[in-house]
């Protein structure tokens, strides 16, 4: 991973310029909130495989416990199932097909909605930042209209690389689990060692992918490149500016912790202490609960504004960093 002798940017300069832009253009905060909400909504994990395996285990455990205690056999779940089955006697079979199709539609709808929302929010913010950087007036209308032009490429960037990476991880864990279960002795040991090395490789790949996913949308929005080319060029930039990018990312994370994490921790710390301290007092404890509720509401509102401003600020920092290296490292 090559690095240029002279730094292309200094973090202090980036932060100063970014703050001037964000302070002057409050519309960027609204777009920043859209990005933040899209990112937080999409980051929820669905632990479906885990849940599917959990239930039989719970049933088995409850049956074993019942046998140990000498109690009579069936689990509550089984009883409920037996009691409720006759209730579905009137449901025609095609209802289940429609129900399945409905649920499938809902699932696809939610996924598509959030993919499009995230791509649009990212595009709008980046275009808004470009307008602000050029000294033009930033508006939701203009930023959004420009984002429509980049929407397809941003959707590709938000889905395909992540999907491929997820498939690789799943394949790896599948092969690993299969090999460990079906082998023993020296072969299993070699498998475990190889897997550990592969996992380190996966971790590095994840970091590279994260940084690439920062540069790539800017290639799409600023340089108007198609998605695949933008991704590949962004990957080249990532390799060549790896340590500088990682350092900038770490500084952003630390700032994020102090701006968002610390107030939240302080809040919970103080109010948990107050809650315990006044517990049992019939007059002060309800007042404390009321106070905590009001404070929580205020905190949520305040944090929303901070998150909105900080997301737009971070976006601006990365965009300014991109402008500093534009055209230098993507060949």
């Amino acid at each position, binding site marked *: 991973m090559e690095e240029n002798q002279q730094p292309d940017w200094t973090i202090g300069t980036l932060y100063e310029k970014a703050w001037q832009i964000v302070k002057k253009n409050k519309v960027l905060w609204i777009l920043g909130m*859209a990005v933040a909400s899209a990112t937080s909504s999409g980051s929820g994990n669905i632990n479906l495989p885990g849940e599917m395996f959990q239930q039989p285990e719970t049933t088995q455990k409850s049956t074993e416990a019942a046998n140990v205690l000498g109690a009579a056999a069936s689990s509550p779940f089984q009883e409920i199932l037996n*009691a409720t089955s006759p*209730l579905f*006697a009137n449901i025609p079979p095609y209802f289940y097909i429609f129900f399945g199709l409905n*649920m499938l539609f809902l699932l696809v709808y939610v996924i598509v909605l959030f993919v*499009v929302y995230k791509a649009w929010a990212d595009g709008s913010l980046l275009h808004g930042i470009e307008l602000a950087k050029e000294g033009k007036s930033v508006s*939701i209308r203009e930023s*959004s209209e420009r984002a429509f032009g980049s929407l397809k490429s941003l959707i590709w960037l938000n889905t395909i690389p992540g999907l491929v990476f997820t498939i690789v991880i799943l394949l790896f864990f599948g092969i690993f689990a299969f090999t460990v279960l079906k082998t023993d002795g020296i072969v299993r040991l070699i498998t475990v060692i190889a897997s550990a090395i592969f996992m380190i490789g996966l971790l590095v790949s994840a970091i590279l992918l994260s940084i690439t996913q920062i540069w790539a949308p800017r290639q799409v929005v600023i340089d108007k490149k198609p998605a695949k080319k933008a991704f590949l060029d962004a990957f080249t930039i990532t390799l060549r500016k790896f340590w500088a990018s990682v350092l900038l990312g770490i500084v952003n994370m630390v700032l994020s912790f102090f701006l968002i994490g610390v107030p939240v921790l302080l809040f919970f710390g103080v109010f948990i202490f107050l809650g315990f301290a006044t517990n049992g007092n019939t007059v002060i404890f309800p007042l404390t609960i009321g106070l905590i509720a009001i404070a929580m509401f205020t905190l949520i*509102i305040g944090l*929303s504004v901070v998150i909105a401003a900080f997301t737009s600020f971070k976006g601006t920092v990365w965009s300014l960093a991109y402008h500093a290296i534009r055209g230098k490292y993507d060949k």
Partner: protein
Amino acid sequence: MNQDNNEKVQDKAHFFLRVLASTIDSVTLFLVMVWLLSFAAASKTLPELVYWLFVFVLVMYSPIWLIYATSFIYYFGATPGKLLSGIKIVGENGKKLSVKRILFRQTVGYLFSMLFLGLGYFAVLKDAKRQAWHDKAIGSEVIVVRPIWPIGLLALIATGTLLFFVVSSSVTNALSGPLKGEIEKFITPFVKENRENYKEDTNSPDSEEDDLPNSVYDLKQI
């Protein structure tokens, strides 16, 4: 110039007119939901109740609502609530919106306006063009076509009254019909079993202090 601007702003639908239109649409949707649930409330048996609940879920969670809203806006420029309020959605320069833009407005646009506790909706109050954030996102405007908002208000009162009557009759049916007995018959074995398990666990025979309910409807007596 100011007079021109004032006239142009007056063409744009005021916040409260838009609220009236949205409320009519929402109440109409609730009416459909409650109408479906009224069949469930009038059920005589539990399997019939489950059947109607299934129908309810199938209808309410189907894509029909998105298609309904998008089709109305595409062909008539407005949902029924907006039509009754005399307003319609148009593109900039009064042009008709494309299906893609309408879909975007009704989905992503509304999500965007919900940020900051729905601030995007209230933006209409202060905006020069009376645009909400979802309007700004796709370049739409909501304009007054004809000043018939009293008809919208009457429609809202009528639908609201109908909704009230459907809800009350459904509740009456549910409480006084055979369904109540059926639910009681279904739940009572579970309550009795829990009661017996409780007695076994505590080794307490029947006693005067034993006040566990025999059925779920005895709970209201406690």
